[in-house]
């Protein structure tokens, strides 16, 4: 059970980091700001 939780947490960290990077860089490549709402 403990091992499963560790695997889930590690997977979550990787996936969230990956998708956030995808969102940020692909918006940036279009000259747009992904964090627009949060900067306002």
């Amino acid at each position, binding site marked *: 059970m403990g091992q499963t939780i560790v695997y889930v947490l590690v997977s979550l960290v990787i996936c*969230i980091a990956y*998708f956030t990077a995808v969102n940020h860089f692909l918006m940036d490549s279009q000259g747009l700001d992904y964090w627009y709402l949060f900067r306002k």
Partner: protein
Amino acid sequence: MGRIAGKKLFSIMALCAMVGLLLLPVVVALPSLAIGADAPGDEVKKEGAAKVEKGRDVYYKTEGLVVGAPAPKTVDGPRDYPRYNFESRVLLWFANQQHLYYGSFVLAIPIFCMVIEFMGVVTKDKAMAKRYDQLAYDFIKISLTAYSITAILGGILIFTFLTLYPAFFGYLSGIFRPVMHIYALMFVAESGTLYIYYYGWDKMKEGFLKWIHLSMSVILNVIGTLLMFLANSWIGFMMSPAGVDEQGRYLGNIWHVIHTALWNPLNVHRILGNMAFGGGVVAAYAAYKFLASKTDEDRAHYDWMGYIAMALGVAFLIPLPFAGYWLMREVYAYRQQMGITLMGGLLAWLFIIQATMIGILFLSSNYYLWQALGRMRGAEKYQRYIKYLVFLLVVGFLVFITPHTIVMTPAELKAMGGQQHPVLGNYGVMSAKNGGINVIITTTVLSFVWYMRGNKVSTVSWSKFGNIFMGVFFGCAYVNIIWLAIYGYYIPANVRVGLSVPQVATTLSCLFFMFALNGVMMKGAKQMGAIEWGKISVRSQYALIMLATAFTWMMGLMGYIRSSVRLFWHVNEIMRDNSPWAYTHTVGFAANMISFNVLFFWVSILFVFWLGSLGMKKVPVEAKAGVPGGAAQPAVGH
């Protein structure tokens, strides 16, 4: 020994001849392109330097010598628009659509053959190699009769143009005159290559000769693709003209005429569309044969054939909405008003119908895959989760088809408090729709992953982490897609429009990374049981037929939308359509016309299938090695 060497020499010569045929149009075209000859209205140049006039390219904004006549200003009458007692546009619509259906089919099938033949050549399992080879041969045999019909329909289309729209056709063929002969020569090359490829199948079935044969399929497909690109340049020119001045006079640069603003998006969209369509038609053929089969062997063969065709078709269907999105983006970039007419104005309701058809395509594909899980032992473990996929698909589908505004009576409008429904109206915007379609596609990818691991259990040491990672990745992908869809409501339109790119990237990440991860995890996996080909529900075969029919209908619809967006122009903003039919049809009329075209195509293609079946004769099976784990397969003579 001498005979084999002779065969090799002959096959290499045939291959060289094909390459020569491929290059011939280019070689023929070079001198004329180099000197700028062959342009319409060469006589203008010959009349002397005094009459040399410069014009400005309407799209590229470059200056060039006017070497063509202006676009004719047509008037409604027998000179420019001769007619029968029938709407000329409808006749042309029919001829064009049928030619396109068959053209798409015969361009897609050789690509499938190339892929399947290559799989047969590289696979180490000899029985499988033979089976792939047989399948590729079956595919090309179906397309051969269709190829003749395509040529006939092409002839009918040209005659229809010449008879009903001579002024317009004269202008268009004048503009494209520098490449018209290339098109004709490419067609000759395509025919020659196809026949050598087909009839040389048995003669070149092993060793080095097989590689030569495979190379021929590559050349065949290069020629076919170039042919399609050339044909696309005409419709690209009609929608977004370039290489001419504002009067429509050709400025001597044929590359500008071909390489219009919409040419590349059209090329990508059409090639993917053709492949998905071709896959659908072959899958429907296999489904029809499956349903008509009398023996288990036949059922097993056609079940396998249907699966391969469906998988290839869906592989190209998945990126198709993204290519469509790119095309629409380019349309907006070219003329914003054109984009608004398409997606927010006159033709917007047709896009709702299109969304419904896309939803049906994905629902059918998923349904087939879930049914296909039934032919695998060990796949039962996924059955109880299918209801969640159904939920995701249905929610995505409903959001995707929600219209922005609804046609209403004044009383209904008053009762609802405005054009938009207070709740559902929120889903009728692109932000929500992008989320909807990406959820649908991601779910289809997930169904495929489940299917691929249906009867297998991973044996790699890190399988537990792999499975958890895969689950979390899909979960996060869904969350990201939905988050981006919701986020779009809170930011300005110019920022929101960019969110579609990470949304698409999320879906494609699932497709590429999860397929790759699944492939690595399933290498050397333990099989729970064989795939029992032929042991699939009859309903699944109807899903394949549904898939093909929906695709045919959608293709007709999208062709109509693309053509209609020019409104009252033959060539957008250059040559006006002054015929009595320069108006947009009602949605109902267009839908009936599309349905008629679909019905005609399917009736005629059934005739093609029947013709193909006449040439089939069964031969005794030497090695009844089935599809892995499947029932014994029949060999079909060729």
